[in-house]
């Protein structure tokens, strides 16, 4: 059947709900379509904090925050967007507080703030307390509060609907999506004046990740299929402290509260690499340093991990400010961080790249920033504004979600007020989707999604993770070509209509194959090291040739095109990046 709404938002995490809330505040008729119940979204797993120069604990300024973000991005972030985000940050946090987010408090009753990696005072002098937090479940309380407010505003939720197609008119205007209702197995069309993607990241293409099983990057694939480019996909953030083997996140807030990384010799090795901020260096650096330590034989017991030592921090701090990570260590590894160091290793955490947008969430379809796709918006991790450049600072992801979610929501509401027409749907908008689903269901011999996915995750982890070189990237590209062939015969065992998660696994692996190439191809082309993209064969940054964004245009089986786009620089000229 066809549902009709002013605005259809795909994804119900922080960005999607923020956009929904602010559009609904303006009186728009908003629907949120999500493959999970909104409260299961991965925003809820964000732990440490959300950055904003509130200056509640010590002097701070949005300009310092902007500088840190630019420097953290290794100068690849667009500085106009970064300025916008850091300026909007305090206002947005205050609005969140007014909506009811239960932040931890200072003794005066203000929002409490803590230190975080890469956040400094006075342009790099010393760490600053900028991360607003609610113990170590900041994302969880923001997600719940936003959902509650959306329910209050009577936003229409379509829970457990997997979006399978993005609808465009001949003229390239976006007018809706096609979604599969998981409960019943029915296919529906959502007809809208504006469509917003807030579909989250792609951590699940890597073997070790802190991301949820749902983090399969569906939005990236749908955009690519609709002819929209993906920007800077080669920049994949590996969080330095994932629980060893499991990849479950141990917040950077742990180091913000005094945690120290140690190698097998008990040495605080970050002192060597970043003498000023030490363990609070940005994530790309810390992850690379951990890998270097491991490669040089200083991993604990010769294995691929180091220790995060919290034993000197004290029971009080662990219990009150970091209760979740203490629980994780105890439950999953049987380790009490009060007494023993936690085994950690880098884990795939965040996609810096994504669907290119401007600061109002409008999707830009080429190197020309004014060339927008009418009716199509994106925000959150799936979008690339770009504020994170080559490496995102901790606390800036939640900030990105709420700042640009808010701006996108308001922009969509304003756009439909200005032009209140829906572009007509094509003759049979669901055909493509139905054909795909039917062919998967009808196939009797083929390969299960799980084996294709496992091989994809293996090659991405082995060849495209923290350290890369031309050989590994070439290998991954040839693996991906092979996988692309295999995925055509993906099959399912569950032939039922109702709640067929087997079918959803198959659909997701189809999505993954459509953008995984963007990560490897972008990385192979970029012959420099910048931020999270670290090439062993090109170990230094090359501003002369590579101070530019990658744009990946996928063409399905016909390969891909890569174009480039300039970086916007306003105040901060690129300098060597030292901490």
């Amino acid at each position, binding site marked *: 059947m066809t549902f009709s709404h002013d605005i259809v938002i795909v994804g119900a995490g922080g960005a999607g709900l923020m956009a929904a809330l602010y559009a609904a505040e303006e009186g728009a008729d908003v629907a949120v379509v999500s493959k*999970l*119940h909104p*409260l*299961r*979204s*991965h925003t*809820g*797993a964000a732990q440490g904090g959300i950055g904003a120069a509130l200056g509640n604990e010590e002097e701070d300024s949005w300009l310092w925050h902007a500088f840190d973000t630019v420097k953290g991005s290794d100068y690849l972030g667009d500085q106009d967007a970064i300025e916008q985000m850091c300026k909007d940050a305090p206002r947005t*946090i*205050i609005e969140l*507080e*007014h*909506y*009811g987010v*239960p*932040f*931890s*408090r*200072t*003794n*005066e*009753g*203000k*929002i409490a703030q803590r230190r975080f990696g890469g956040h400094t005072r006075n342009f790099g002098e010393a760490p600053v307390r900028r991360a607003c937090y*609610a*113990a170590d*479940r900041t994302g*969880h*309380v923001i997600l*719940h*509060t936003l959902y*509650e*407010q959306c*329910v*209050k505003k009577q936003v229409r939720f379509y829970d457990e609907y997997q979006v399978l197609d993005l609808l465009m008119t001949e003229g390239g205007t976006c007018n809706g999506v096609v979604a599969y209702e998981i*409960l019943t197995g029915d296919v529906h069309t959502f007809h809208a004046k504006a469509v917003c993607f807030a579909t989250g990241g792609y951590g699940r293409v890597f073997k070790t990740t802190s991301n*949820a*099983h*749902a983090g399969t990057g569906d939005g990236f694939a749908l955009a690519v299929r609709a002819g929209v480019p993906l920007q800077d996909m080669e920049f994949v953030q590996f969080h330095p402290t994932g629980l060893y083997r*499991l990849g*479950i*996140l141990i917040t950077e807030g742990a180091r913000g509260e005094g945690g120290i990384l140690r190698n097998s010799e008990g040495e605080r090795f970050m002192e060597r690499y970043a003498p000023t901020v030490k363990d609070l260096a940005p994530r790309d650096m810390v992850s690379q340093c951990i890998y270097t330590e491991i490669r040089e034989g200083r991993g604990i017991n010769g294995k691929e991990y180091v220790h995060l030592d919290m034993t000197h921090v004290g029971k009080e701090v662990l219990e009150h400010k970091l209760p*979740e990570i203490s*629980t*994780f260590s105890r*439950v*999953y590894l049987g380790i009490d961080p009060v007494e023993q160091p936690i085994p950690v290793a880098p884990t795939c955490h965040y996609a810096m790249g994504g669907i290119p947008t401007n600061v109002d969430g409008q999707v830009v379809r080429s190197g020309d920033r004014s060339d927008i796709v009418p009716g199509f918006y994106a925000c959150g991790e799936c979008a690339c504004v770009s504020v994170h450049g080559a490496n995102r600072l901790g606390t800036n992801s939640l900030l990105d979600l709420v700042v640009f979610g808010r701006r996108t929501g308001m922009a969509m509401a304003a756009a439909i007020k200005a032009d209140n027409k829906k572009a007509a749907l094509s003759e049979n908008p669901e055909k493509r989707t139905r054909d795909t689903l039917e062919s998967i269901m009808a196939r009797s011999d083929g390969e*299960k999604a*799980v084996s294709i996915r496992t091989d994809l995750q293996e090659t991405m982890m082995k060849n495209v993770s923290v350290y890369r070189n031309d050989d590994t990237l070439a290998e991954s590209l040839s693996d991906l070509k092979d996988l692309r062939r295999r995925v055509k015969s993906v099959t*399912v*065992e*569950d032939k*039922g*209509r*109702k*709640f*067929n*998660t*087997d079918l959803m696994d198959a659909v997701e692996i189809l999505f993954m194959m459509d953008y995984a190439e963007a990560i490897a191809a972008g990385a192979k082309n970029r012959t420099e090291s910048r931020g999270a993209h670290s090439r062993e064969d090109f170990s230094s940054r090359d501003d002369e040739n590579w101070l530019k964004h990658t744009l990946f245009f996928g063409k399905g089986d016909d390969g891909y095109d890569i174009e480039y786009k300039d970086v916007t620089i306003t105040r901060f000229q690129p300098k060597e990046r030292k901490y």
Partner: protein
Amino acid sequence: MNITVKIKRFDPEKDDAARWESYSVEADKMDRALDVLMDIKWHHDGSLTFRKSCAHGVCGSDAMKINGENKLACSVLLQDLVKEGGTLTFEPLPAASVIKDLVVDQSGFFEKYRAVMPWLINDSPAPEKERYQSAEDHEIIEEATKCILCGACTHSCPSTWADPDYLGPAALLKAYRYVFDTRDEESEERLKIVDSPNGLWKCYTIFNCVQACPKEIDITRWLSALKRKAVTTRF
């Protein structure tokens, strides 16, 4: 280790009633219960259906009955559930209609949640800065804000088993979280909702919810505070 996994299965398109199915599984004692389910789905029987997402106990997707108790499948290790050669059982949450295998219909659960007006109400003009709240006042509600709404508590409550319309611990805890938030101005209306025949008074302090809660929230304690508040406010 080798274990036998028994799963209570139900396919709405084939079965009239739930049936038990057994699998023999090779697993590690440090595996999560969820890992076992994924292993079965991926390598033994692709039609096995359950919800999952974050896989580390923060999203609340995979609450189910494991060895007779409501737990999150991703937050419990095999070594705490079963011995070598032993049997591990999975069932859907009790007192909920089953959609398929371990997936239950949570619409009733969320209807209860929506009924308690789970949002901050403060119609006074918003200040320029945040609304101040002392650290002590924050601490009153802090534990309640840990709730992930997985449903383990509500579906472990004998009052819910008896009366499916009982608001249940999760919704009442949410009511507590707002009634006791010093920034909220509408606790009276909310108290009228929880002080109803389907509400607060069907909590007989059985403590099943406390035992089931994967986030270790002392739910009964906070519901008792809510009861005292209802009594002192309403007469």
